[in-house]
């Protein structure tokens, strides 16, 4: 068999496989689950993140829903011109947060990294399927994503996360315009990862008294995630801050572990911002500032974001020259318009 024929066959094979990969990729994009209802559209939020200018973000917030309801980057920007992004998904395990942080450092050089500690209690043994898909799906295909899948996806099902079309292909009967748009015009939203929600319920809030809480061991996988994120921040010149947002501190499932996380952070010299001990200081009102008992609404997030903004200024952060400030201004206006 001559070399020319072999080369021709090799080229044909590569071309065909590339086309097959394109079919697979396009089908996955169309059939993949896009979002929950509007504010929780994590796909759109990650698309927005990937479109940010390189090194244009000076802080990030990573964690669970307790993060994405707490810091509103547009409010922070409005107060101090400091740009940031929230990369959080529902019940995001801390091990997943580690991979999100790695994703951040590929294109951004944040100076401050807020790690929200609510999910520290989770041992990682029984993670809900929806939580895992929610964390994994929005990321672009990369080695980082592969490692994330390998670590947090259940044994025997990892290929369903890598080729998520295995999971979502049955959606062919319920496709809508947003599914087709995902192929050529993927949606983004301007909230910079924040989930903008309003609440109507009133809650009685009480600041956490850690003197009355007995610490509980941090599960191994959560502790290792915190350690790894701390190291990653140090390696990339970023300051890690442990953020504890609103939660029901009377529930010892969470409070004991959170106390241990705070102690761990203090031993490492990591700043801790515990909102649950600052309700008076921040003038948090149970009647107006909560979506539910564990999550701030837009008014509560505004108050917290104001504090975060001051904190960042104290850390020496300033307006980032790489950021598209025109876009930020426009996005802030859109956000305000949306509140009306």
């Amino acid at each position, binding site marked *: 068999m001559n070399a020319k024929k072999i080369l021709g066959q090799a080229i044909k*094979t590569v071309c065909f496989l590339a086309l097959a990969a394109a079919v697979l990729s396009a089908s996955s994009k169309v059939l993949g689950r896009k979002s929950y209802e509007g504010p929780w559209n994590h796909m759109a939020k990650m698309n927005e993140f990937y479109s940010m200018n390189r090194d244009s973000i000076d802080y990030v917030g990573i964690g669970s829903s307790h993060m994405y309801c707490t810091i509103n980057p547009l409010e922070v920007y409005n107060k101090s011109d400091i740009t940031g992004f929230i990369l959080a998904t529902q019940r995001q395990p801390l091990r997943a947060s580690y991979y999100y942080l790695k994703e951040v450092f590929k294109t951004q050089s944040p100076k401050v990294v807020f790690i929200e500690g609510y999910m520290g209690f989770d041992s990682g043994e029984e993670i809900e399927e929806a939580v895992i898909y929610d964390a994994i799906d929005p990321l672009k295909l990369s080695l980082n994503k592969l490692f994330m899948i390998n670590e947090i996806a259940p044994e025997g099902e990892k290929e369903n996360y890598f080729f998520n079309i295995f999971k979502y292909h*049955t959606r062919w*009967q319920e496709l809508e315009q947003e599914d087709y748009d995902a192929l050529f015009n993927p949606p983004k939203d301007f909230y910079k990862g924040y989930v903008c929600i309003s609440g109507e319920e009133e809650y009685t809030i009480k600041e956490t008294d850690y003197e009355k809480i007995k610490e509980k061991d941090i599960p191994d996988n959560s502790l290792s995630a915190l350690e790894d994120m701390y190291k990653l921040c140090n390696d990339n010149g970023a300051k890690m801050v442990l953020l504890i947002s609103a939660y029901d501190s009377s529930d010892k499932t969470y409070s004991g572990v959170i106390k241990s996380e705070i102690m761990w952070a203090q031993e490492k010299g990591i700043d801790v911002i515990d909102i649950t001990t600052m309700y008076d200081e921040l003038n948090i009102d149970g009647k107006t500032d909560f979506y539910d008992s564990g999550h701030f609404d837009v008014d509560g997030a505004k108050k917290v974001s104001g504090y975060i903004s001051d904190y960042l200024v104290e850390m020496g952060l300033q307006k980032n020259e790489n950021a598209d400030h025109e876009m930020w201004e426009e996005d802030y206006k859109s956000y305000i318009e949306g509140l009306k």
Partner: protein
Amino acid sequence: MSILSVQFMLFVLVLAGIYYIFPPKFKPYIILAGSVFFYLTFDWRYSLFLLLSIVTTFFGAIIISKRQDKRSKKIWLASVLVLNIGLLFAVKYLPYFMGLVSKVFDFQDPGISLLVPIGISFYTLQVSGYCIDVYRGKYEPQRNIFLYASFATFFPLILQGPISRYDQLSKTLYKRERGERIYENITYGAQLMLWGFFQKLVIADRAAMIVNNVFPDYTSFDSFGLVIAGLCYTIQIYTDFSGCVDICRGAGQILGVDIMENFKQPYFSISITDFWRRWHIALSSWLRDYLYIPLGGNRKGKVRKYINVLIVFLVSGIWHGVGLHYIAWGLIHGFYQVIGALTMPARLCVCKALKIDRGRWWYLTFQRIITFVLVSIAWVFFRAEGVMMSVNIVKNMFTGWSTYNFATIQDLGLNVPDLIVLLVAVLIVLTISICKHNGIRIRQGVAAIPLPIRWIMYLALFFVVLVFGIYGPGYSGASFIYMNF
């Protein structure tokens, strides 16, 4: 490792890579290593049974070939067969048999539970056939145990056949030559696997949704529903078996090993006898060569012939599964053929009297429809979970007609979009089958199509399997609603 899994596809690719990199003389050993690895991905204890079969039949065949007197040869052959087929019977049928006996003689079921090695029904017949062929002097026994083991364990065949003959399989399994048609092997093999996935995932598993909904709850459905479910099972069992065999044949083809076709458009058969020349050809030819002919075949008179046919199909029923309904299914096919043979003179008389040309297309179509209906009725016994349930389903298919609202066909288990996909997919398979039945060589025909159009066809089939295949964990929007935020 399921043949429908990503892991299996990766396994075949990696094995093919190693296989083609190494010199040809290593080919059977690489295949053996791959086959052993494949089998070990199931319960490792299964491999002990497989090893026993390999060792006993390998040495048994050599001893048989060395023996001079026929009686001694026979004794050795009988010993090897009793050991291997006895083992098959013991692990697969003994618990059920003991349960039956305990019911008949009213004592407590001992509750025997035995490990049933995967593929034992297939590889036992394969190696037994080898020993019988050596006994008959058809070929010399293989003297290299590793080469023999590569035949006995060949991974595309071990789970669900086709049961291959040593002289046929060894031609390409042991072929050692440079300049193999690597590109053609891989492309043809991949195409065959893709076609197999289409049949299995798009058609068989979709039809199964109706079958699995209707059969267990058959009393809730009228004749229309039962007939549709019966028809779906007829489609399901063919496309499931044929699809899986094509996936396995494709995997073999990728490695340059030719595996026999197991189906030749069986639902185009003009008689039950014809059906068994087209359906599960490997098994039916094995039963013909190693059971029917040794029993005397049709050489000892009509009555003996009919008895032999019934014995063969009784064995076929037993081989297919554990349960009286499998035996009933086998015997039904046996009786079909006996009745067909008995009524043939009368039918010929009628045709002669009415001046019917039995070669005319409409008569052949009529025969095909009758055969299809008979086969489909028999399939009810294969699928249902007991003889009485089967009888009731068949009875209700004829006696339970009512005014059926076609709009409620969705009550059978598939919504309208899925039904449309099923119908279109079946039409595609039907079209291909008609082409093959008329002698059109599909693979060669496709190869002659211009490259861009060919690629569009392959990618379209790939897309169809990807999107419309019934596989994966399934998606439900409800499970993604984060109730607790």
